[in-house]
Structure formats: structure tokens, C-alpha cells
């Protein structure tokens, strides 16, 4: 993980200031923070509230409404398994059971070595070639349990600098 992921009030405020003047700025700000820090740091909530003239409760309400936003730091890689129908039709349920067993975690959890956070997702737009899995910003298709294991080996042996 590179060091720009370390957050401070100043770096949070800088992200907010770059976007606060846009109409409907809250989601763009939350995305910018999560892209930079991997999650929405708790200190960000009062700063955003202050900058956008909202209450902290309102900002919390928005963060919690959207599945995409995380309030705890993820592992080095985020692995999302598609749970939706087109992938179910080609074995996504078996894949998800396999992935949980193999990693020893459930959705929204991170492995103890902090390598992998597992999440559910509902469709990645790769529905003709499922089961689909998203790893960080890339999508993989036709992910059999064997292909999933190979993917994990690849992620766990890669040097950390490769993380985009």
C-alpha cells in the first residue's frame, strides 16, 4: 500500500476543497476520498459536513445508504463476487461458497493477513461470460473455483507496488 493512503485532516480537506463547489458535490467527494484512502476515514465526516453545510448525521446517512462506500480500511485487494442471476446460472453460488471457505471469511470481511477483502456485487456487466469477479479495478470472466484459486495465488505472490 503506498503512503499517500495515509490520511490526515489536511489531505481530507484538500480532496473536499477540490470538489465542494460542484452542484451535488457529496458523492464526488466521497468517491475521491475512498479512491485515495481506500475507505471514508471517520474524521472526514465532520469536515465534509462543515464544508457542505450539512449535519454529520446527514453525511453518515448518505455514506450508509450506498453499498460502495466503506467505513473501515480494506485489505490490499478487494475481491468482489457477482451474486446476480446471470452468474448464478453458470455457478456463482458454488463459486461464492468456495471463495468463502477458501479464504475463511464472509462478505465484508478481510483475511487476517489483510491481503483480501471479500465483497458481494450485483452484476459487473460481464453477464455473457460469468461467473464474474472484480479484483480492484479489473474484471475476470468464467471464474471457476480452480480459476479463483489461481487468482488468489497470483494476488498473494505479487509485489505490493503493483497495486494501482
Amino acid at each position, binding site marked *: 500500500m503506498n503512503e499517500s493512503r495515509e490520511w490526515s485532516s489536511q489531505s481530507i480537506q484538500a480532496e473536499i476543497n477540490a470538489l465542494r463547489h460542484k452542484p451535488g458535490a457529496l458523492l464526488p467527494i466521497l468517491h475521491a476520498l475512498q479512491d485515495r484512502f481506500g475507505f471514508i476515514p471517520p474524521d472526514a465526516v465532520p469536515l465534509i459536513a462543515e464544508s457542505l453545510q450539512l449535519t454529520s448525521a446527514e453525511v453518515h*446517512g448518505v455514506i450508509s445508504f450506498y453499498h*460502495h462506500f466503506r467505513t473501515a480500511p480494506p485489505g490490499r485487494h478487494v475481491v468482489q463476487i457477482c451474486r446476480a*442471476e446471470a452468474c448464478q*446460472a453458470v455457478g456463482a453460488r458454488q463459486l461464492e461458497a468456495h471463495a468463502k471457505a477458501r479464504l475463511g471469511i464472509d462478505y465484508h470481511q478481510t483475511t487476517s493477513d489483510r491481503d483480501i477483502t471479500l465483497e458481494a456485487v450485483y*452484476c459487473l456487466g460481464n*453477464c455473457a*461470460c460469468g461467473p464474474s469477479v472484480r479484483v480492484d479495478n479489473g474484471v475476470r470472466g468464467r471464474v471457476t473455483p480452480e480459476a479463483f484459486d489461481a487468482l488468489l495465488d497470483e494476488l498473494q505472490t505479487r509485489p505490493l507496488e503493483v497495486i494501482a
Partner: protein
Amino acid sequence: MSIRVFVPRDTTALALGADAIANRLAREAAARGESITLVRNGSRGLAWLEPLVEVETPTGRFAYGPVALADIPALLDSGMLQGSVTHSLALGPTEEIDYLARQQRLTFARIGITDPLSIEDYRAHSGFRGLEAALQSAPPDIVEEVKASGLRGRGGAAFPTGIKWQTVLDTPADQKYIVCNADEGDSGTFADRLVMECDPYLLIEGMTIAGLAVGATQGYIYLRSEYPLAKEILDEAIAHAEQAGYLGENLCGSGRVFHLEVRLGAGAYICGEETSLLESLEGKRGLVRFKPPLPAIEGLFGLPTVVNNVLSLAAVPFILAEGAEAYATHGMGRSRGTLALQLAGNVKRGGLVELAFGTTLRTLMEEFGGGTLSDKPLRAVQVGGPLGAYLPESQWDLPLDYEAFAAESAVLGHGGVVMFDESVDMAEQARFSMEFCKVESCGKCTPCRIGSTRGVEVIDRIRADQNREANLALLHDLCETMVDGSLCAMGGMTPFPVQSALNHFPDDFQRAANGDRS
């Protein structure tokens, strides 16, 4: 002379290893002393053939696929760079591939052919002709043309696009907006993604025409966060279009204005519902609004707003360039033009199939789809996303037409067709529909928020054989309550897949959750 070789870069091609294929091709060709120019085109939409490599020859483009890394040396040895058709992966001239040749590609005429980010390619393939026509027309004439085409919204509700535009045109305001609904949340759908990743200028052109038609100078593309590649490509395309004068303060030197920005959603299915989407764009929780007022009158920030699906907007450049009649001659009944169907799930030949309305579902699944991937008998097909009904074989001869589907309590929706073989447990699918509604409900109204939670519990009891008959009756009642009492189609249509499973596959509700079908 350097030979042009095309390796697609859409999400599906990349998910199947297209980058590695491109690298290996470049290396192997160089090692053989062959000079090639790699073009990273969009996908042709033939997902089952991805990665689909094409080679340009004096007699047109030749296709090879699906290509695996290990195939590359033998493909090159076979004379692939000269268009040889001897290798078992050789498909011959791309345009003659039956799956493609039998389609009516109006909206998707360009995908896979061009480099998605090249404005020169876009122009060379009739791009911006619709915009040029619109710049010569008065706003009411543009709206009339869209009305005359018969185009209906492709996002699901099938509302006539021209009539929506007329309302926005007729509502005076200092600021109006064009909002493109690119939330594409339905499982089994990827046509919006293909437009955005493979032909982004088409969407930009369609939105600009919409802006000219109704007097809006600002557009937003509300894009789901699950599509990072589409975001990257759209952002780049918008920057190019601004530089080239196709967006911004002075469209093609006309003095007219249109600005465009991509905004990301955040993983909420309900934000595909247009009023929830507008709340989200305003930076709020995506709670569905009461209607009226219609977004066309009080939309984004309370101002008149066109909200249209990607495919609705992407159909418009053709209509303006070729005329409403050229579009409306396709189709049947009140369903005019073409529909982008997306074959997905357990299907041998999945991909994008753009056809005039009227083909039967069976033709689509058999002649295009080639049956199931598993080679087991096809049992059920869900059309129109997670809120669409599951259709049993007795309904596969329905023509793909909005009214024909509605008459059977089914929907075409956004054109997703998800096939399941005989191993599917329809009670488990019904449970998933309720579970999905529970996860994705915006929470504003009780029948949806509480009903879906109860729905999951009731189906669990049925599957566990606890008071089965009483719980089946309860499930029927619950479905009716949700249909009648929900504010929007999330709660109002979740019962469609559940009821269709109950009605057409009752046996699946009579056996244990993981037991035999007996």
C-alpha cells in the same frame, strides 16, 4: 506495409485476457519480422468469441476467436496476418459471421469496428451527422423527428422519448438538464456498457442532440461505479470532444452550448429508478420521490430534466441522420425500431443481439444463443432483469414486443435475457428475488421494505416444509400487497419473478431446499 490487427478492449474481452493476447501478438509478430499495428478496438458484442482478434486485409477484416495465449504461434504460422482461414479458430470475414450478419445493427452499427476514442474513426463511420442535422433544425422539429421515429425508452418503462422531450421543451426555465441513466443495474444486461466503452461519442452525440432539442446546456451521465472502464473511456472521450468542438461553449461553431460530466453512482440498484437517481445526483440518499411532479417538469435541482437510458439517447443520432422513417420501418405494432437484446447466463453464444422488434424469444435463444452452455435442457429464462418474470417453455414463442410481453405479466425491460438449464431451483430463484429487494429497497415504503424481508422468511419456511400450504398462500398474498402498495417498481415488480416461479414451476416449492425434485 504494416498490417492492422484488432484486439478489443471492452470489459468482457479484458476479463478473458485480451491485454495478454495483445502483448503476445506484438511480441510473436516482431520475432517473426512481421510489422503489425495493434488497434485496441471496441467489442463487436460477440462475447462468446472473445477475445476476438481481427486482421485487416485487402479484402476486408478477418476474425479469429476465441483466442487463447497458447493459440498465437499456430495462428501466426497458419497465415493469420494474411487472412488465412485454415486454423480451427478462423472465422472468415468478420461481417459474414452468421450471428452478426443476421442482426439489424442501427445503434450498434459501429461497435467493434472503430477505435472507441478516435474522433476520426467516428466521423469516418457517419459520426456526428445526426448532430449536424440537429444544428440545422429548430428545437420543435428535432422533437417531432424523435416522436415520429416511435422511439420508446429503453431503460424499462418504454415511455415515448419524444413526448418526454416535448414536456421539457414546453416547460420554461433558465436552466434545464439532460441526465443519462447509465446505472445499468439489471443482471444480464451490458448493452449500455458496450455503447460507453465501444462507441462513447455516440452517447455524447445523442445527449447533445437532446440538449439542443429541449434547450438544456448541461448534461450528466449517471454511471454505476461497477463500470470503472466505462468511466475512464467516457472521461477521455468527453475531453477529446471538447477539444474538437463537439462539446462546450460553441458546438461546431454554431454558438450553441452543451457541457457534459460523468458522475458515479455508488452501488445502489434503486438509483437506476429515475427519481432516486436525481436525489443521488443532488448528493443525497437515493430515496424514491413521489410523482408527480414529473422529472420533466421538476427534475434535477427542481428544474426541468430529461432522464433517458443510454440506449434511448444512443438511438437518436441515427434518427436525426437517417430520418425518423428509417428507424420506424423496423419493428412491430407500437414497438418501433430495434431492441438491443443481451444473451446471458447459461448460454452457448452469449452477447449483444440487436434486432427489430418481433423476433420470438425462442429464435433468439436457439438460433443466436445456440442453447445452453452446459448442453443440458433449457428450463427457465428471466427476461428484463431482476424484476422480470421467469418464462417457462410455453412462453418462448412470444414475440419480442412490449405489448406481447405485458399481456403475459412479463417485461422486456432493458433487454436482458438470462437463461437457466434444468439444474435451476426456482424456489431458490424466488428467494433471491425477495432477498435482492430486501438488500436494495430504498426503505421509503412498507410493502417493499418489510414485505421483502417477510418474503425471504416465508420462502425459507416453504422450502423447509414448515406449514407449507399456509405459507404458500401467505406468499401469494404478500406478492399482491407488494404489487398494489409499493411506491415504485422495485417493490411493485419484485413479485413478478416470484409469482412466475410459483405459477410455472410449482413443483420446485414442494420439495426440500436442497433435496430431490420428487
